């Protein structure tokens, strides 16, 4: 683990923001692709791989500045979009291993050293990602898609009737959630079988998704480019089969969800507790 002291003794006032790693053959039309500051991104070559970087001023992207700026959600949005634009453009040309946000080296030599150090892992990832794209499938709860039981008459006065109604409402809400959860699991299972790899991420909050109802499925699927049309067709089919979920397909994304060095998750997620 490098110390802060060493990090601060770098040369010059700029750092190298890493966007992603790819093969030379997939570099494509890099020239003119604007990076973090609007200046074109640059390739750094080592170990048969290419890192695509932006030169960034340390006054904004240095250690202390990053601490401050990452807490500024407006700054974060701008930076996240700029980084994603570059990664997305690279993915349009070929396989790319996207770097996590805020990976900054001091100079080209340090970037090259990282490539050399991780060469085997990066090359294996690129092999795995070649000709494939990440697709996102979100499933939103559709209330009222499954008919609910009629209210039953019972003894007691207005108060008892109110309590019965209230209980029925709560039960109905639980049913909606249970149905949506079951549908989400079934949809993920079916999509996973059509994908090379699958991840189920935490659902986004409604404030972020902007959707009127809760998200029950937030899946990512690594799909062969040749199978992408079939995958989209499957999403349509599953949407029709599960009216209790509204499915939304986005992509292809750069393979953000399929490069982390976490232990591989099983495609099948844990069943809910009930």
């Amino acid at each position, binding site marked *: *683990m*490098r110390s*802060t002291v060493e*990090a601060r003794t770098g040369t010059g006032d700029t750092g190298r923001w*890493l966007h992603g790693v790819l093969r030379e053959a997939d570099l494509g039309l890099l020239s003119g692709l604007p990076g973090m500051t609007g200046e074109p991104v640059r390739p750094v070559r080592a170990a048969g791989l290419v890192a695509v970087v932006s030169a960034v001023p340390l006054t904004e992207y*240095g*250690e202390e500045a990053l*601490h401050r700026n*990452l*807490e500024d959600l407006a700054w974060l*949005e701008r930076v*996240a*979009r700029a*980084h*994603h634009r570059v990664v997305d453009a690279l*993915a*349009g040309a070929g396989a790319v*291993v*996207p*770097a*996590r*946000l*805020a*990976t*900054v*080296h001091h100079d080209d030599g*340090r970037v090259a050293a*990282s490539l050399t150090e991780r060469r085997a892992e*990066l090359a294996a990832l690129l092999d795995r990602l070649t000709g494939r*794209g990440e697709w996102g499938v979100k499933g939103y709860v559709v209330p009222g898609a499954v008919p609910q039981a009629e209210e039953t008459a019972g003894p007691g006065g207005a108060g008892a009737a109110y309590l019965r109604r209230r209980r029925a409402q709560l039960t109905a809400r639980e049913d909606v959630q249970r149905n949506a*959860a079951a549908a*989400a699991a079934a949809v993920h299972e079916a999509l996973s079988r059509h994908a090379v790899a699958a991840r189920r*991420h*935490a*659902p*986004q*909050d409604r*404030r*972020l*998704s*902007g959707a009127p109802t*809760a*998200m*029950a499925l937030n899946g990512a699927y690594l799909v062969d*480019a040749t199978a*992408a049309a079939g995958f989209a067709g499957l999403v*349509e089919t599953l*949407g*029709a089969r599960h009216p209790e979920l*509204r*499915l*939304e*397909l*986005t*992509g*292809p*994304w750069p393979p*953000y*969800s399929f490069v982390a060095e976490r232990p591989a998750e099983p495609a099948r997620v844990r069943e*809910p507790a009930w």
Partner: protein
Amino acid sequence: MTSTPSVVQNSGQVLPAGHEPANLGDILERVLDRGIVIAGDIRVSLLDIELLTLKLRLVIASVDTARQIGIDWWEHDPWLSSRARPPVEPGPRDPEEVEAERRPRVAARARRRDVGREEWDEIDG
């Protein structure tokens, strides 16, 4: 492979999104939480990343919704669970001091799980 995003809804309609900027939440959850981790020279400390990630995840993921469908990532995620995390990175700062500072802040966030609501309002506002 084209990189043009498209949206398919249950109607079966395929809507090319063209040059529409992708949904911010979709981008944030990908660039912050996924993507390969390569140790750079300039590092935001684990402490700060943890708090940022926690804050954003409380925004991005509704804890209630996640629980209802049986996802409990926060209990197993090394970025979030102090039990699963290695000690805070040693550096010029005294690790004891960092740890002592971290404990109440993280605990406070754990107690106020709805902190994300306030943070998100900052963006909206």
